[in-house]
């Protein structure tokens, strides 16, 4: 990947114009899941075909099962102490490093956006630029949001009292089946809980998963600790019930169609997950909205500490 002409979709597009003898048989990749820092196939062996914007087969995806999802949550839970316990300065540098790695894969990312959405080259480039810039912006929030969302409370008594936000634990990000902005949307959903210090299990967009999968491929090279970010591909409709019903998931951040949103909200009531679901037509290009620290507020818990300040 990465070199012009090696995308199966390009080969498919050019097939009818080329003599048979010139055609290089493209390598039809099966993208794998990203879990605990490794790239396993689905435990079930199930795959899904991935079609480009014209309907031609371009790759296969691992079709995550309930067991795969549960394994990913387990990996995230195990990684949470280290990720949330890392200094905010280190988390900030790791997320910035992710932006550096993505910058080096601009062409791949643009092609990933274009392949399944059919976006123009300019539109795809714009989305890649916005995505990398968004990553840089969120990198900067890691060591600042506690200042903006925390407070020192002037209680009426001899106590030192302050409130601090801290990450809630394991957050599942669901990118639904929407069409628009597969890369920018994915990062905009993942970065707020992730930068707050949550361990994330992200479900890539069902129809446009390639941007998310390239982020998954970049994560270990950015020194994201194994398990702190996990990426699954599959069918969001199928996964929604399992996500909502999982007792060791603390929060859900989703952009989803009403059916998926309903499943996520209703099932989550059982263990009182914090659920933040946005409608499928969310506009991720709104930079003010999507770099606002309030975006991570649903995924942090405010802890208030009292201590006497008089003897």
């Amino acid at each position, binding site marked *: 990947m990465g070199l012009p002409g090696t995308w199966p979709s390009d080969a498919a597009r050019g097939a009818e114009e080329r003599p048979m003898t010139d055609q290089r048989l493209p390598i039809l990749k099966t993208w794998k899941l990203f879990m605990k820092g490794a790239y396993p196939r689905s435990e079930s062996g199930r795959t899904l075909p991935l079609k480009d914007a014209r309907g031609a087969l371009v790759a296969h995806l691992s079709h995550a099962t309930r067991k795969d999802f549960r394994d990913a949550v387990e990996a995230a839970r195990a990684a949470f102490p280290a990720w949330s316990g890392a200094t905010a300065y280190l988390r900030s540098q790791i997320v910035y490093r992710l932006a550096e790695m993505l910058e080096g894969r601009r062409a791949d990312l643009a092609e990933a956006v274009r392949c399944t959405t059919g976006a123009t080259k300019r539109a795809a480039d714009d989305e890649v630029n916005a995505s990398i810039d968004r990553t840089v912006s969120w990198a900067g929030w890691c060591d600042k949001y506690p200042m*903006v969302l925390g407070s020192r*409370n002037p209680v009426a008594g001899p106590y030192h009292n302050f409130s601090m936000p801290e990450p809630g634990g394991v957050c599942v990000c669901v990118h639904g089946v929407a069409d628009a902005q597969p890369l920018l949307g994915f990062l905009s959903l993942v970065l707020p809980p992730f930068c707050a210090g949550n361990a994330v299990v992200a479900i890539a967009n069902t129809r446009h998963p390639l941007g998310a999968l390239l982020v998954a491929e970049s994560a270990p090279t950015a020194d994201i600790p194994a398990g702190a970010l996990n990426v699954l591909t599959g069918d969001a409709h199928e996964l929604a019930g399992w996500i909502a019903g999982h007792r060791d998931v603390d929060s859900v951040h989703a952009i989803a169609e009403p059916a998926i949103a*309903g499943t996520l909200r209703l099932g*989550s009531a059982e263990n*009182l997950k914090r659920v933040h679901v946005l409608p499928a037509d969310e506009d991720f290009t709104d930079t003010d909205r999507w770099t606002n620290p*309030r975006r991570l507020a649903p995924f942090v818990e405010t*802890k208030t*500490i*009292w*201590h006497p300040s008089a003897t």
Partner: protein
Amino acid sequence: MAESPAGTVFPATWEYSPAPESLKVEVPGSTKLFIGGQWVDPHSRRRFPSINPATEASLSQIAEGDAHDVDAAVAAARRAFKPWSKLPASERAKYLYRIARRIQERARELAVLETMDGGKPIRESRDVDVPLAAQHFFHHAGWCDKLRYAVPGGNPRPLGVCAQVIPWNFPLLMAAWKLAPALACGNTVVLKPAETTSLTAIRLAEILQECELPPGVVNIVTGAGATGKALVEHAGVDKVAFTGSTEVGKLIAKACAARGTRLTLELGGKSPNIIFADAAIDQAIEGIVQGIWFNQGHVCCAGSRLFVEESVLAEVTRKLELRMASLRVGDPLDKNTDIGAINSKGQLATILGYIDAGQKEGCTVCQPGAQALPAKGFWCRPTFFTGVQPSHVVAREEIFGPVLAVMSFRTPEEAITRANNTPYGLAAGVWTDKGSKVFDVARRLQAGVVWCNTYNQFDATSPFGGFKESGFGREGGVHGLAGYLAE
């Protein structure tokens, strides 16, 4: 503490003289609903009795609101919303300031009424419930015209009509806790008090009238569970706020999920209170008492699981027993009373059921205190269990009564792991004189409020609310405003 030869703090013959609160408070024989600024009879014409749990004497017949009344209240709140939310914020503030002042001025009457209706000691309603209720209105009054500074980068707007359902353990305080931020943010409210403790909410409605709060801005519909259900499931409600049990909280969460209604929940707890060997033990004993026997243990954040470092376990239990023997159980209107009446017959049965279950599971029960309990009313002596295993029901379930489970630990790791081993995450206590240990343990405890070398402190400026299944959202302080504002 000076110990007498008999092992009690004071000789048994040394009795306090009665010090009853002398103010007589008029209680109406029957009550009405407060809807659209009017006092109206309930649609069903049905009423239910509210009794004094310390005497079992009937206080009043409380109006039972039904779906029809809820409809009317929500409609009144909806009509009031536009003018109220469009009022200049500085004007809105002045109403809240007025309410705070009137609560302060009528504090004694409210405290007596609260104690008569709920059974809590007058010392607590006088020194905690009522002053804090006033502070909540006063604090939030000042927020009205400052909301844009409360939300970073936001454009705060009110949500609309709020449905608020509150419990019986702090009736007036919970009403203030819910109403003040909702009103400050420009919302209108339908409030449902708990069925055993409606009287101070009704008195508060009179104060709102005195303060000339526009009709419909606050509506109060009394009733039991069915009334609350009709309210939280009403299609005309934009936001639900509930304080109560986790069980009911989950049902409300499901109902709100189906409709996409905004929700904040302040639910149950089984809060750990951790005593390290290097703590100031005598102060910690007072903290344990304040943690579990405050308000007869009818406190969602009660420090009901006590973890004591093994090397001081014997000392702590001995001193605790001694201290408990000096707690005075009895007439809540007596200013010397430490522990008042259990709120209701049903709650007393629940608590006694847990005490029974604890003994059946093999825990050792300890109920120091020889003072005779009144013949009438609902009473439970302060109780603690030793020999408790983490799997025992008294160590896992919220009892909501004056019952403490005492356990020991050897290392800070063990204490923290066991403290966090619960679906709840409302509050926690930690006692040690080592500064670095205090902050390390506080950081690692999964709880919305961590009291270090203190317990059960509350303030209008300090956010309150839980992690995990203790609910979501905060009440109080700048964080509490978020639950009543749209971005």
